[in-house]
């Protein structure tokens, strides 16, 4: 497909953020939308995550946003006429230390207040619901919710199929198209140059997550979000066994769940993962994950690893996404810094972003995510990832 020479909005990045933004802008008649993707649609974090769609969060603010986001997913199949395999698998935080359990009492109470179905389980109840942990490191309890998973690729195709049906070719998606530069003047953004041509546009949306710092740099925009690698492995399918997507944070963060096909996806986070664009697979990850996960759930010793891959979390200093326009450059919009929550948050937040772009007013729920909450010279997210819970400590300014 030839590249248009002009557009009303150019979206850089054909992942969930870019595609959802294209959908929402088209629905609001925002003019001619062009989506540029360096590789194939969903080649970045969108195609590399495990698509857990969880309302159960650690802060009330985030819970409220996540509730709207999960509702958006629940409606998505009907709205886009494509099945995204939204499935309430259940979600569990497995707790190992008494302080975690104490902390969770308040959080479960907060969930109940908001209408999120979560429960604090005793060690015995945890093993009854999740016998995969039998014989492993003794658990102190768990928090179990009715949260969901979707199929990340199905979400991409649902959006692509939907965009292809848009009347009058109002939106086009261009894979294998690399952005090489951004043209700007005093008035703001003027054009995007690519390896396949030049597009004049008054508005650009940077939706490139892990690569967003590079794209921002092309436009002379500075943001404090930085990418860090995360890795995943997947096993050969086993019979339905694990009735929740599980995550634990002690002694370090790890997680696993079964897909609808029965494969187990899992990972163990390296708290010292350096900052940088990196999607490579590592041997250290396989060994770290095997060691941590089999210690917790010894039955998983017998699953067979068949594939591994790496992707990126684009992490902002407050671990909240950066969504909206910036005072640094007129016409330069961002949907980046998803901090590992892009799959959950992007479809709904892109609805809010489109609303903002079309009406020129930020919807209230979007305000906490606006880019200008950071100053251009704010420190980047290069510091070591601290204890997971510490980011959400009560009264912390980071609690968003």
């Amino acid at each position, binding site marked *: 497909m030839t590249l248009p020479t002009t557009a009303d909005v150019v979206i850089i990045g054909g992942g969930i953020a870019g595609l959802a933004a294209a959908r929402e802008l088209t629905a609001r008649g925002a003019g001619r939308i062009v989506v540029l993707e360096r*590789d*194939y*649609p*969903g*080649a970045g974090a969108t*195609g590399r995550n495990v698509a857990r769609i969880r309302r159960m969060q650690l802060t009330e603010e985030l819970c409220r946003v996540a509730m709207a986001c999960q509702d958006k997913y629940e409606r998505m*199949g*009907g709205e886009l*006429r*494509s*099945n995204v*395999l*939204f*499935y*309430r698998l259940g979600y569990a935080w497995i707790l190992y230390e008494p302080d975690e359990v104490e902390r969770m009492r308040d959080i479960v109470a907060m969930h109940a207040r908001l209408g999120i179905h979560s429960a604090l389980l005793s060690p015995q109840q945890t093993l009854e619901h999740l*016998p*995969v942990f*039998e*014989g492993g490191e003794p658990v102190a309890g768990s928090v179990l919710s009715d949260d969901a998973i979707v199929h990340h690729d*199905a979400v991409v*195709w*649902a959006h692509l*199929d939907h965009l*292809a049906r848009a009347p009058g070719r109002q939106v086009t998606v261009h*894979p*294998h198209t690399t952005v090489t530069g951004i043209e700007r003047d005093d008035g703001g953004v003027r054009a995007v140059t690519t390896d396949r041509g030049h597009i004049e546009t008054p508005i650009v949306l940077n939706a490139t997550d892990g690569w967003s710092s590079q794209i921002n740099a092309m436009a002379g925009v500075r943001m404090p979000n930085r990418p860090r690698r995360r890795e995943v492995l997947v*096993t*050969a*399918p*086993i*019979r*339905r*066994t694990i009735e929740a997507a599980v995550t634990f944070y002690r002694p370090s963060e790890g997680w696993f769940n079964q*897909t*609808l*096909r*029965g494969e187990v996806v899992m990972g163990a986070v390296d708290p010292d993962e350096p900052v940088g664009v990196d999607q*490579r*697979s*590592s*041997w250290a990850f*396989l*060994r770290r*994950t*095997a*060691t941590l*996960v*089999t210690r917790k759930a*010894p*039955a*998983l*010793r*017998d*699953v*067979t*690893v*068949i*594939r*591994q*891959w790496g992707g990126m979390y684009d992490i902002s200093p407050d671990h909240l996404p950066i969504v909206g326009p910036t005072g640094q450059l007129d016409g330069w919009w961002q949907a980046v810094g998803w901090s590992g929550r892009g799959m959950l948050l992007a479809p709904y937040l892109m609805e809010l972003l489109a609303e903002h772009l079309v009406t020129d007013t930020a919807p209230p729920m979007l305000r906490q995510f606006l880019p200008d909450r950071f100053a251009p010279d704010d420190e980047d997210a290069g510091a070591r990832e601290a204890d997971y819970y510490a980011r959400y400590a009560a009264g912390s300014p980071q609690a968003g």
Partner: protein
Amino acid sequence: MVARRLPEGTASTAQPARRVRFTFDGRAFEGIEGEPLAVSLLAADRLILSRSFRFHRPRGLMCDTGQCGWCECEVDGRPSVRSCQVPVHEGLAARSEHAWPSVDRDLFGWLDLGSPAIPPTFYHHRFLRPRQLRKAYLDVIRGFGGRGRLPVGRPSSTPSRVARELEVDVLVVGGGRSGVAAGEEAAAGGASVALIEAVAGRMRPVRPGIRVLDGAVAVGWYEGVVTAIDEATLWTIRAGMVVAATGTYERVPTVRGADRPGVMGARRVLDTIRHQRVLPGGRALLVGDASDLAEVSDALTGEGATVLGPVPTAALRRVLGRRRVTGAVVEVDGSTRREAVDLIVLGDRTPNLDLVRAAGAAVEERDGQLVPVLDEAGRTTVPNVRVVGSAARGRRGAAVPDGPDARALVCFCEDVHVDELRAQVADGYGDPELVKRRTGALTGPCQGKYCLAAFSATLAAAGAPVVTAPTGRPPLRPIRLGDLVASEERPEP
């Protein structure tokens, strides 16, 4: 005529064979201690060992490398074990997986008849109405998933391994003739050399000075570091130059029925006759080049089997039989004929590209095969990786015949058919990375070892816009999670 055990020949081992009893799906069988479980079952004419993931197609012993995965069953409580790699022992208890009521007569096998109506994208626009039933639909789909049972609550033991590092000038992966020659040449030039061979006890002696890791399986390539696992060790090997002498895999032709029990690679057939003294069939059709098949032809006729062919691979149009091979349709000089056979022997082999692809080296299509791109010195596009021997060129045979049957399988792990790949191109999703994700082709347990060439050729023929092999991902072979756990780190002295 069926598969049967042969009288002991001179080729058998010096030690007297000890008969052992084991069970498969609760029934008692007898085998020879130490022979592969799949061969013991073959000797009892039990050909169906597993069912394919999506359509429950019957599968049996096929390859000689342990990598096709068609013989997977539960062995002594461990799920999805490749029974061609398990030595049979007294009291062994095996169960088939993913079949009901039995692997031989699996009711879900009828799904295969409906396969044209269940493409890999079957759910994309379905199961949305009525809204209240959405979860129930997915619960049904989830019920069809999975294979093995996880032994929850009674974890099996895995050997405790030591993590060790090794640094050498040259690492040779594969201890066949070309690998040994490459290793000896490097060592003669003064280089420090390590050689890893996956199958313990198979290598001929090599000259002193070469560090041989016999029984170590190369499982990964990570930025120039090769990792390998053996019974006692997790190896991390740094080498200035890596020589891939990794040989070949059987090339299963893209024709209907090519995965039926009774279709076997020539080397597996030779091995069962010579080493395990089991004749896999009484009337065999040889498929491939005559020079590759002469040895297996002699071995079969020597044991009294009737041998037809060889016919060129392109002449094989279809394999007949629902639960096992009963015949083949062969086209020679424009005329088609049916042959009644119970064994089809495949001679063609395709390069093992696992290490080459994991290293990110380029591959190209040549004479219908996917081969590594090499310069005159045998170097790949990754400068410190060389390929030697049959891994560089394979052994004959175009990946896909001209005008292939639309309902022939390309990917066996995920039961993906030729027309399903074509449909992706027609629907505008022809990028190989998208075809892979939409159809599941290349994503099953073999990770493309048995279908990459046919996958690429089918997409190219269908006019896909970008024709590259999708990214190869580690590990190179399936690994039990427990096998990755080391109890101790020991730096190399």
